[in-house]
């Protein structure tokens, strides 16, 4: 999901280069309408998407992706526009098709941004709270389907932490926060290894 902004960007950058803002706004609006968040919210809460154990988690994820998409898009567009057009022209002459250009030029040159997005995205997911709280509290804490287990929707990382905290399990919450830090660090390290631009 954290790669979503990149995919969105690829969709829009070529044809809508100068209209990126417009594009992302238009796109989100359409998307929200499609899933029923655009105004008439009957199918979203309680009996709808957020009340459904199978759809609740993806819905929250989608909301978070959309929330981060604009920021990601701006970072990616800036990075891509910083690549001189002549580099792509040189590639055209060298025989590159669109895929070659994406694979051998664009992606390597926006690697630092990818790295940044992956790390901040991962951490945002691990510590997610606002979205979960806002989207599920209203439904009376519906259940979510995670890896075959039915959990209270609230049992998700950041929110879980809050929940432990609010229930008075301070020690458990503190310990849990350390585990989260460890996981975040580990994932960041792996990302850095994988995406390290070979200097």
């Amino acid at each position: 999901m954290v790669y979503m902004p990149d995919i969105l960007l690829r969709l829009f950058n070529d044809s809508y280069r100068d209209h990126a803002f417009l594009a992302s706004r238009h796109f989100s609006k359409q998307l929200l309408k499609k899933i029923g968040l655009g105004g008439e919210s009957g199918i979203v809460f309680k009996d709808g998407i957020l009340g459904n154990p199978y759809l609740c988690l993806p819905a929250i994820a989608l909301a978070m992706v959309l929330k981060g998409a604009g920021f990601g898009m701006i970072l990616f567009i800036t990075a891509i526009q910083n690549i001189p057009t002549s580099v792509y022209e040189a590639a055209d002459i060298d025989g590159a098709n669109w895929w070659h250009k994406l694979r051998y030029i664009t992606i390597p040159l926006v690697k630092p941004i990818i790295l940044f997005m992956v790390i901040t995205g991962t951490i945002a997911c691990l510590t997610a709270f606002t979205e979960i709280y806002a989207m599920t509290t209203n439904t009376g804490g519906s259940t979510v389907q995670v890896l075959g287990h039915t959990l209270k929707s609230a049992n998700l990382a950041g929110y879980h932490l809050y929940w432990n905290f609010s229930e008075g399990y301070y020690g458990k919450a503190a310990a849990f926060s350390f585990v989260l830090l460890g996981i975040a660090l580990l994932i960041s390290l792996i990302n850095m290894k994988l995406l390290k631009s070979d200097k």
Partner: protein
Amino acid sequence: MAGVIFKKVSKIYENKTMVIQDFNLEIRDKEFLILVGPSGCGKSTTLRMIAGLEKISSGDLFIDGTKINDVAPKDRDIAMVFQNYALYPHMSVKENMAFSLKLRGVGREEIEKKVLQASEILGLNALLERKPKQLSGGQRQRVAMGRAIVRSPKVFLFDEPLSNLDAKLRVQMRVEIAKLHKLLGTTIVYVTHDQVEAMTLADRIVVMKDGFIQQIGSPLELYEKPLNAFVGAFIGSPSMNQIPAKIVVAQGQVSLQGEDFVIALSGEKAKALENHAGEEVLAGVRPQNIHPKKADKNKTSVLREVEVIEPMGTESYIYFTMSKNADRTWVARCDGMTEVQEGEKAAMVFDIDKVHIFSKDGSKRLA
């Protein structure tokens, strides 16, 4: 056999500006052809049309006898060196040069061989593992050329390749490009705004202005017989002195008359101008065809005060006011040191047979 032919090619950008108009040109196989002209005259556009980076609005373009109006850049078998080099910033020198071969599915060994060959020619052997940002301007320039060479294309395109280099390096790279052309024998189309580059490198030069071809010819032809005042002034350094004058014929003597000078013409020039009597013209004299002397009884000289002398060692530039009608100070160039002094009156002796006469508006050569 890889000539490039333009047939009535025009280019109109989206904003409706006609940048190139009715462009006809035949670039010969193995020729080193240079497009030269002031900035904004459409040189790059012309080159980019050959490369396929700009669409042709009308007319036809042929490479090696094949019409390529709608052929993709990669299928035109051309290579281009950009003004800003356009190296792939994240790839090493070697990877930069190998990229096109890799995309074309050339085998690893073959790539290795070709890259080594090119880097040998260009003296890049020690730099193969470096990234572009670890190279100097001149080295980047070489890598850009290397990237073009490995492909052994039919036509090389250069867009102002030396304009980002300092003066000394520019001279050095100029020589290397000349050597490269001798070595490879590939057709080269080269764009520059620098007439010195054009004069020193080209087999033939195309002088352009405002999207139109002004003249096509060898460096010497352009220098000795400019077809209009623009070419006259553009080619040669310091540039040609020009002044409005009138052709006067009296008692069989043809002379060039200005408000404050008369220069008697003779020989072929006189003959060619006989039936232009009374006509207003534009006269041009190159600095090396004016010889400031202490004294001269010749009718081909005018007496003028020497205003400034610039000694350059092997040559000197002598500045003087030819006429109050002249739009700039005239300059004479003489070998070594000059015999005249600043502030003294000197006889400016003209090589009469080297005076260029254009129509009044400068659009046509009369003699």
